[in-house]
């Protein structure tokens, strides 16, 4: 187990570096000169005079080759923790991001927990009663949850209560340390909406895994031994099915991060997703790169956690 953990941990810096390169290049290499875009935007905003290309390029650090730009950017982040300044407001990015991460994190965490708590029992039951009415109902329910776009549910959830009861989501965000109950009550609805997005996939996955597991030979042995269904399912089958579920959650979390962008927009939460959307609107490239990088780092840490848990749970790896 120790060797496994060390091996996984060593891969992290490599992945982080590669991810940072990808994030950096994503913005740089896409067709469309940034300077031209800025000029076009300035022209659209009314500043009609042509800008000095060389000066802008120098200010943006674009006058050096790409790899030098990357080296400067990366070293600045690693050595100083400085992710640059916003193109629009000239404020430093790092404190802003640091302030917003906990919010997005809290939202994603709540959504994950809610999703798992609902989905796993449903998937389990659905597999145990395959092709019965209950299975159909539960399965269609899960697929329905998965099919309904989160932004639609979110928009409806914000819209109709305001029409029926005159309720609006609170305008200002309630921070957790100031008012935990208020914060939770504010976050619970977007978390549920977001969680429902992951629920459908998890139910399906759990059901498929359970079906696969229940066809194995050792289950057949257990049946012939005369064990009750409850023992077979809970003690034998579920433990083996849970392992891929844990791994699957590693894939669900990036989806939740992406979905949180939409939730934060609808429910007016000042998280990373909102910052990203605003930055995209304003063509604020330093912020876009910084947020992409942060998300990548979060997901890499998340993957590491999942791998560790997987290594701990799966007895085959555990005893390596």
């Amino acid at each position, binding site marked *: 187990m120790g060797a496994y953990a060390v091996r996984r941990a060593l891969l992290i810096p*490599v*992945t982080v570096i*590669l*991810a940072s390169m*990808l994030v950096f290049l*994503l*913005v740089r290499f*896409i*067709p*469309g000169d940034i300077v031209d875009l800025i000029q076009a935007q300035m022209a659209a905003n009314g500043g009609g005079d042509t800008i000095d290309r060389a000066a802008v390029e120098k200010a943006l650090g674009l006058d050096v080759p790409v790899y030098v730009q990357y080296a400067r950017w990366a070293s600045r982040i690693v050595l100083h923790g400085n992710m640059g300044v916003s193109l629009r407001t000239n404020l430093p990015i790092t404190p802003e991001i640091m302030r917003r991460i906990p919010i997005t994190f809290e939202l994603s965490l709540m959504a994950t927990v809610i999703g798992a708590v609902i989905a796993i029992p449903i998937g389990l039951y659905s597999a*145990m009663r*395959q*092709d*019965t009415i209950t299975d*159909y109902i539960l*399965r*269609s329910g899960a*697929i329905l949850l998965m*099919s*309904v*776009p989160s*932004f*639609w549910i979110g*928009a*409806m959830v914000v*819209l*109709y209560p*305001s*029409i029926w009861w005159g309720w609006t989501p609170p305008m200002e965000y309630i921070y957790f340390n100031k008012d935990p109950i208020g914060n939770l009550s504010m976050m619970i609805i977007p978390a549920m909406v977001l969680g429902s997005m992951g629920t*459908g996939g998890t139910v*399906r996955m759990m059901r*498929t895994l359970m*079906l*696969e597991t*229940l*066809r*194995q030979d050792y*289950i*057949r042995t257990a*049946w012939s031994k005369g064990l009750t269904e409850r023992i077979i399912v809970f003690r034998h089958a579920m433990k083996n099915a849970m392992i891929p579920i844990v791994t699957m959650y590693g*894939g669900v979390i*990036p*989806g939740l*991060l*992406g*979905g949180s*962008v*939409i939730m934060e*927009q609808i429910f007016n939460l000042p998280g990373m997703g909102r910052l*990203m*959307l605003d930055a*995209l609107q304003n*063509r604020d490239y330093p912020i*876009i790169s910084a*947020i*992409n990088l942060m*998300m*990548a780092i979060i*997901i*890499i840490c998340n993957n590491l956690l999942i791998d560790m848990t997987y290594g701990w749970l799966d007895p085959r790896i555990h005893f390596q």
Partner: protein
Amino acid sequence: MTTNSNEAVPVKQVEKKRDGFMKDLFRRMIREKPLGTIGLGIVIIMFFAGIFANWIAPYGMKQIDLINRLQGSSPQHWLGTDQLGRDEMSQIIFGARISLIIGISATTIHMVISFLIGATSAFVGGKTDLIVQRFIDVWMTIPQMAILLTIVNILPRSMLTIIMVLGITGGIGGARGVRSNVFWVKGYPYVSAADAIGSKRMRTLMVHVLPNIMSLMIIGFTIGIGGAIMAESGLSFLGMGLEPGIPSWGAMINGGGQQYLQTMPQLALYPGAALSLTIYGINMFGDGLRDLLDPRLRGGIGRYALSDKKLKQLKATLAKE
């Protein structure tokens, strides 16, 4: 003349002609997977709506009627009009066409790319596989929505852009699944047998590997269409999708910067319902398809592989003995 009763009477053996793959699949779907059949029905309806939109929709796609804007249901406009006076129902029908086009094109590109990358990587193996895997892992660390938003924001807004971006980003992600499937097939002896008789790698790939992962690719395709439609509508909702004139369900939900939603929530309700129903149908169909086609779900004795009816029959026959 009496025939010796011990003499064997040759019985003409007639082998029942097996139905083709598609027909058999269709029949199994209808008989065993009612949910999947419902999904298929929904998908077919959407297909028709999209293809024959010009004939079905009562009004034109861009037919503006500013005098009658923001009206509720009426005999002329069954679902009312939107903020520019366009007939809501026609917008939804045309939206089906847009979703269809984007969904199918993007998913086709997705499938092709994930097959190319995944199968080649798995088949060639070794260092190439390692490097490609690293790249895909790194790609997956960035949330798909973030990548989509970043790229779409920079490129010129058009349907082609959206299709290409959705297809390529999805393809890179899907490569991982294809790769694991190819590894699974590679384990079978016919692949090494083909290798032993000197089959060129490309031939083995096309002739032996591809048909065996075809089932899984079909499942992936159907589910991928749902994902593509969902992704495109999400982008449109955030305002980063298609050009403003083109009716996309996601854009309609966003419609008019949410200012009209308070007064006339139907504008968001109907396209959302259409979107949900379509994706629902696709997912149900894909689910049923997977239950039927996924080779890993085949076989097994015991309660969990037989339906209730068959289990009773089995128990009855066993009890008789």
